[in-house]
């Protein structure tokens, strides 16, 4: 039987029961739409995170206290360990120890609110180096100036604030030269950052950046650092710098067995790899759930195809009497099932893509950044193909039932 006519027959068969056909493919539509939604938002999120992390510079290296966390319980070690202090910072700053490091700054994170004339805001308070912040995160100043190394050494009580902090505390007023209060310490605002939005794990607009020495002395009261951020001369030297950092700290702490390290070193590449792995695992897990929904959809297809075969028993008998072979009948019903699920797949891809665009816009607005919608062409094709495969697999049994009908029994069927 000519494929063109088989196709026509299949389309006629499906259009005869429009609402039934639509309801039948609903399971497939939902399954495929979910695949596309998960795949494209996963891809967009991955792109966003890797771009943002990439924005920090591939040459950025982070030294953290405590051993390399291998599970959730190890993070406590990182938070509680005080293995990174001034002594370690000074050792790392020595050119003889880490010759290929160009910038080094410790980081101190403070929890607290900022006050200005009765206005309160809870910002992200970061004790850091303003120059490093500018170089590593591309955070630029819109007003005023950044604090210098001299300010850091002198524990100057100065701050650079994010655009949202400025808005919340000062409104339209010029904040430069004004004092904000964090805990009991007054800090003079010397600069305001340009609006930037979400940068990886924090919102740059909600930052208050102060010299790390100031943060230690007046706000945290502890001598150790949360982390020390190091910038290598270039990305190719990252491995070399990591090696030098490890050797320097091991020598300083008299560690001979690397398993007993009381610090760990993360590179941006390592973080990007980790994030990609997590997103990958998450995507696979969700895809498995979707695969199960496709199987359920397939069972629905089989059920309806069996009903259709039963309803069209006389037609099958007639076609056989007029010369159709078992193979003709089998392929006709298989084509119907594949067409049904194929259409379901296409509708699913369309709906999934539409939802993905909305989801991407939503993520973008939440993260205050623009996220490009990544239409997963390959996954769409896989989605449509797999839906057709579902039709083929679950259509086989009903189609075989149809093809095996005796023409006489079928013609007598009422």
């Amino acid at each position, binding site marked *: 039987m000519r494929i063109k*006519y088989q196709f026509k027959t299949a389309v006629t068969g499906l259009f005869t029961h429009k609402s039934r056909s639509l309801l039948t493919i609903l399971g497939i539509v939902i399954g495929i739409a979910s695949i596309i939604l998960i795949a494209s938002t996963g891809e967009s999120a991955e792109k966003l995170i890797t771009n943002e992390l990439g924005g920090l510079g591939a040459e950025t290296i982070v030294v953290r206290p405590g051993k390399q966390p291998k599970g959730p319980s190890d993070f406590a070690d990182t938070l509680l360990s005080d293995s990174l202090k001034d002594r370690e910072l000074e050792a790392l700053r020595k050119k003889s120890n880490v010759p290929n490091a160009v910038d080094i700054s410790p980081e101190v994170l403070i929890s607290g609110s900022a006050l200005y004339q009765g206005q309160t805001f809870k910002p992200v308070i970061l004790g850091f180096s303003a120059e490093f912040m500018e170089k590593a995160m591309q955070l630029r100043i819109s007003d005023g100036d950044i604090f210098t190394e001299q300010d850091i050494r002198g524990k100057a009580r100065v701050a650079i604030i994010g655009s949202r902090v400025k808005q919340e505390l000062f409104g339209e007023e010029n904040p430069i030269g004004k004092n904000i209060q964090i805990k009991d310490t007054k800090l003079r605002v010397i600069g305001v950052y340009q609006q930037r939005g979400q940068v990886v794990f924090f919102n740059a607009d909600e930052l208050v950046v102060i010299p790390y020495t100031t943060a230690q002395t007046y706000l945290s009261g502890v001598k150790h650092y949360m982390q020390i951020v190091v910038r290598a001369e270039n990305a190719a030297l990252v491995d070399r710098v990591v090696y030098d950092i490890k050797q320097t700290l091991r020598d300083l702490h008299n560690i001979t067995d690397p398993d007993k390290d009381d610090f760990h070193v993360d590179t941006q590449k390592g973080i990007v790899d980790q994030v990609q792995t997590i997103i990958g695992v998450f995507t696979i897990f969700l895809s498995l759930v979707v695969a199960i929904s496709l199987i359920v959809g397939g069972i629905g297809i089989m059920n309806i195809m069996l009903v259709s075969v039963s309803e069209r028993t006389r037609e099958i008998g007639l076609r*056989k*009497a*007029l*010369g159709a*072979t078992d*193979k003709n009948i089998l392929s006709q019903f298989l084509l119907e099932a594949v067409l049904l699920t194929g259409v379901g797949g296409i509708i699913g891809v369309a709906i999934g893509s539409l939802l993905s665009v909305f989801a991407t816009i939503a993520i973008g607005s939440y993260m205050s950044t623009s996220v490009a919608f990544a239409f997963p062409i390959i996954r769409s094709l896989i989605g449509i193909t797999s839906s057709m495969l579902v039709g083929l697999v679950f259509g086989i049994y009903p189609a075989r039932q149809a093809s095996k009908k005796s023409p006489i029994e079928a013609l007598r069927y009422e």
Partner: protein
Amino acid sequence: MSLINTKNLGKTYFNEGVATNALHDVSFSIDEGKFVAIMGASGSGKSTLLHILGFLDRHTDGEYRFDGKTIDEHSEENIAHVRNKEMGFVFQTFNLLARTTVLENVKLPLLYSRVPESLWNERALSVIKSVGLSHRLDHESSQLSGGEKQRVAIARALINRPRIIFADEPTGNLDSKSGEMVMDTLQKLNQDGHTILLITHETYTAEHAERIIKIHDGEIISDDLVKNRRTTNHFIK
């Protein structure tokens, strides 16, 4: 050589361990170009016989040869091909595809044939014309009268230029006028050289054939030529 040849043909159905003898010791032959009626009351076995003759069912006893070959000498695929190419079927209930036009219904057997697609329309138009339905080409089967439906079924049976047409109670669902038209069509086809095997329970309808084989309880009780054959010929000119 006869087109149809049966020798001591029998058919026994087995249903839940109970054997029912539907046909017994049926022997006859039909030559090409003849118009033969098989007549019998309901349950006499005439439809069972037609199904066996049309390769739609298999006999259990005796022998049946179509054009010299038994059904067992054909592969399953070839049986379908014989039904498609050599035989045409007309059923009492028309069996047209719903929501399908006259033209598409008539073309249906071509879908399973080896006839080149370029000839399909020409052939379909020609047979539709021969049953007088050229003006109904694009009408769906549901828009036709009973008589028209049966004439579409006859056109469909003719499309592959079969050697025999099996007509199973073709007037059974029709009023007398429509029935007469259908019988005229069959007679005309016979005059053009087609072999017709008609199944009916009515003497009046059977008398349109040239020979009547009467069946009762699965056995042939008479096999005679029709002395006063009915011909009206007011429809086919």
